[in-house]
């Protein structure tokens, strides 16, 4: 898609997050930007089902951006990352790992599995909002996303 007006661009974002509190917080942060559609799945298996448009996600849009938590039930975030990047259909979708972990091994592993970015959720909410804003700005306005 060719965008002329950055403000008007509407992207689909998939949030893979199990913690309801974090889901709420992220929604709150995204609520500031109405032009994004935010879909949420709560575990890795659901995420893959959504991406493959399996039931009950047959009508799901293809996300332009995935925000992925690492510590998920059933299928772990790392597994999802690996599977998505292994799948030729899905690997083009940018994935931002958004997690509480600061551990270097998590960072390294995520990039090794071809995550596009790794963001540690700031402990402070104001900073969290700022981070989401920046993600949004960067991926919506600054970079080109594959269509």
């Amino acid at each position, binding site marked *: 898609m060719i965008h002329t007006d950055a403000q008007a661009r509407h992207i689909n974002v998939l949030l893979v997050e199990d913690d309801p*509190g974090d889901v709420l917080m992220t929604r*709150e942060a995204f609520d500031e930007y109405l032009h994004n559609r935010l879909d949420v799945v709560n575990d890795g298996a659901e995420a893959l089902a959504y991406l493959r448009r399996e039931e009950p996600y047959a009508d799901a849009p293809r996300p332009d951006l995935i925000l992925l938590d690492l510590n998920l039930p059933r299928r772990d975030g790392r597994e999802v990352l690996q599977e998505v990047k292994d799948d030729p259909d899905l690997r083009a979708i940018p994935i931002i790992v958004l997690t*509480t*972990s600061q551990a*270097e091994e998590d960072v390294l592993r995520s990039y090794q599995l071809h995550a596009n970015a790794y963001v540690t959720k700031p*402990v*402070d*909410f*104001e900073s*969290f909002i700022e981070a989401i804003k920046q993600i949004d700005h960067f991926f919506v306005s600054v970079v080109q996303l594959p269509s």
Partner: protein
Amino acid sequence: MTATAAGGRARPLGPLRSRRGAGSGGWPLRRAFNVGAAVAAVLALLAITLGALALYRLVEARTALLDTVNPARSAAENLSAGLLNQETGVRGFDLTGRPEFLEPYRMGTAAEREAVARLRGLSGSEEFAGLAGDVDAVQEAVAAWRTGYADLVIAGAGAPADPEIGRLLFDEIRTRVGALTGNLDAAQADARARVDRASAVVVGTGIGIAAVLLALLVIVGVGLRRGVLVPVSQLAGEVREVVTGDLTRAVTPTGPREIAELGADVEAMRAHIVRELDAQQQVSRRLDQQARDLERSNRDLEQFAYVASHDLQEPLRKVSSFCQLLQRRYGGQLDERADQYIGFAVDGAQRMQRLINDLLAFSRVGRTTEGFEPVDLAAVAAAAAAQLESVRAELAGEIVVGALPEVTGDPALLRQLLLNLVGNGLKFHRDGVVPVVRVEAELRDGAWQVTVTDNGIGIEPEYADKVFVIFQRLHGRDRYPGTGIGLALAKKIVEFHGGRIAVEPAPGGAGTTVRCTLPTQHPSQEDP
């Protein structure tokens, strides 16, 4: 290890085998030696006695021959010659009537007298049992000849002497002289034979003694070899095997009692050493086990601290974030009191987060270190200063970095250290005084002393130790930010590198100097 009793004697080697049982039953060396010496002495005495006896007999025989028999024989010869002379003289005178022919007679008589005297002198010795008798017989015949013929002739008186009678009488003399010399010859032969026999005995005795000596030497040699040399070299061989490494090889006592006892003692010593070694190894294994247990316990503890700190973050984030959300969404709709409540709640949660983060950082010291490497402190200081740039600029302060060395350590931890110390120097500045923080290093006693000096509010000497306690603050929360972990963290980092840290008033009185000693050689990494 073997404990020494108060008396100074080491603990005995344990039960020694009974001395009686030691050894292979051989004679004790001492007894063998004593017996051998006694036998040798007896044999020597015997040899000397026999030898002396043999020699004595030889000498005796020789003396008999030389001093008795031979002179007797030559005296007999002289007697015979003297008698012959007499006869010749008398006959000559008888024929010629001239007195000069009596000269041989006179000489012969003198010779006869002398010889007879000699013979009689010798006739006392036992070789010549019949010598006196023989001489008597001769003299008797001579006397008969004289009276029957010689004197008559010499007297020259009218009565003619019958030469025939003279010849007959002289023949008798000759016969008896012949018997004398014959006996003397026999005696001489006997004496010679005796000398020969005595010589033979001497030689035989000598050979016998030599043979016995040889036999003795052989026995001694064999005895020494079997009794001493072989057991000793066997013992030496076994001991050498033990010495060159195989402590488990038993030493078998053999040979005469002394050597067997020695062997038994060596064996006891070896067994003792083996026991001590085993005990030591057990102790060492136990210590290793304890060290491993301790290590594991440490790891578990640190992991617990890490995980706990990490997991504590999550709920805290919720509290803090939703309080803030409350603030954002409902801040205007609630009353002031509610805002205050929310404010304190958020503040509390945020402080807790910072405390947990600091605790996390504190517990991570030493956990994430891969290994020590050479670290350029100058570069580290520059990085820390760069990180503090915004703070420094805001205060219009100054960070002065002197010549810093290269040390061995963990670069991330050392950067954290300098960040803390220099940050403190800036943070605790005096009102109205531009903060100046100096970072310097000097080599003292083989270790690097890194000092961070500021011109700030200083630390009272009575708190010089307290400041290093974790979460310990000297000022109210409102005055200076921070959890009070900075110096505790610095201390842990310095001690992890094997060094020491201390605070002291800055030179000149105002401000603080933090002195860190970093050894040039890092210690074993097992004990952070």
